[in-house]
């Protein structure tokens, strides 16, 4: 066990939430997180619904993109903001659609403070893999297989929104993919810059709402295109 980070607390861990049109769930998601975290950074990625108005009434740091840029771009904006804060030791990325649990976020935050690894990736396939709907499971497993093969890593889930990253590791990354394939780019750079990484089991709650908001089959083709471009430019 690494003891040199022991003076850090959950106050030094910032929650980064990319958000787009989540007026239905954002209040619940954020109020739940606020029970444990004092620093929540929400990037409203050009929402067209009432999300932005609702967020202004909450006690969070709100960064607003004037136009919709994509999940990857929103995460990068949060990273750019948090890495300028001296007190920030680590960042936990959290999806806004309510599929992640606050317990997992706390577990990730405590572990990133405690462990020697620089990045912790969430995995749906270490435990409770049966919770993942069959079609989604096939899709995710295929994406993981392709990413592992092309990048040369051995991970069990490459497209999980729940992650914990030490700020010093985030500063090494140079993410420029604006869509969902930024996850693959992140893994590619983790491998390239030899950043230490480990996986922790997460439990995802698949509701009708989160399934509707999540990656569709057609969107996954766009992610595949981005991955191919990434590998070509490697």
């Amino acid at each position: 066990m690494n003891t040199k980070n022991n003076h850090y607390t959950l106050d030094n861990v910032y929650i980064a939430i990319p958000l787009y049109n989540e007026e239905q769930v954002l209040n619940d998601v954020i109020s739940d997180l606020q029970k444990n975290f004092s620093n929540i950074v929400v990037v409203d990625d050009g929402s067209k619904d009432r999300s932005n108005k609702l967020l202004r009434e909450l006690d969070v740091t709100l960064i607003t993109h004037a136009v919709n840029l994509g999940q990857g771009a929103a995460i990068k904006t949060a990273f750019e903001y948090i890495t300028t804060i001296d007190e920030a030791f680590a960042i936990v990325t959290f999806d806004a659609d309510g599929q992640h649990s606050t317990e997992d976020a706390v577990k990730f935050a405590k572990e990133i403070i405690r462990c020697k690894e620089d990045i912790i990736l969430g995995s749906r396939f270490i435990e409770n893999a049966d919770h993942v709907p069959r079609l989604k499971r096939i899709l995710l497993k295929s994406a993981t297989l392709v990413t592992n093969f092309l990048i040369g890593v051995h991970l069990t889930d490459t497209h999980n929104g729940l992650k914990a990253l030490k700020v010093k590791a985030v500063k090494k990354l140079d993410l420029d993919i604006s869509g969902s394939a930024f996850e693959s780019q992140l893994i590619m750079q983790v491998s390239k810059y030899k950043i230490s990484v480990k996986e922790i089991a997460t439990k995802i709650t698949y509701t009708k709402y989160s399934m509707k908001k999540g990656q569709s089959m057609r969107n996954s083709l766009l992610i595949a295109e981005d991955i191919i471009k990434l590998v070509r430019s490697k």
Partner: protein
Amino acid sequence: MTLKLIFMLLFLFMLTYSLIRPFTSLSSKFFLLMGSTLGILSLTEPGYVSNFAEFLGISGGGKDLYLYVSFVTIYLFIFYTAQRFRKLESKIINLTRQLALESVKKNNEQLPD
């Protein structure tokens, strides 16, 4: 005859334009120059273009050469347009991000300590 004259004027304009206009990409200049020259040649001396096509090993003559050059030009146009589109997208992303971050910075400065 009138149609021939119109095309001749068009190709001459393209040739002059390709020589005068500053290009950022050399291949664009090359394709405009080559296309307009081939166009002028096809109107004045069609035999030259056919000979040139034959020299390149294109059996169908000048018409086939034009067809191939057109295909290559179209594909290059799509490729460069897509590239330009990506660069533009990247600029928009950076601009939007900087605006968003500046706005938060300003808000934070206005907050009482």
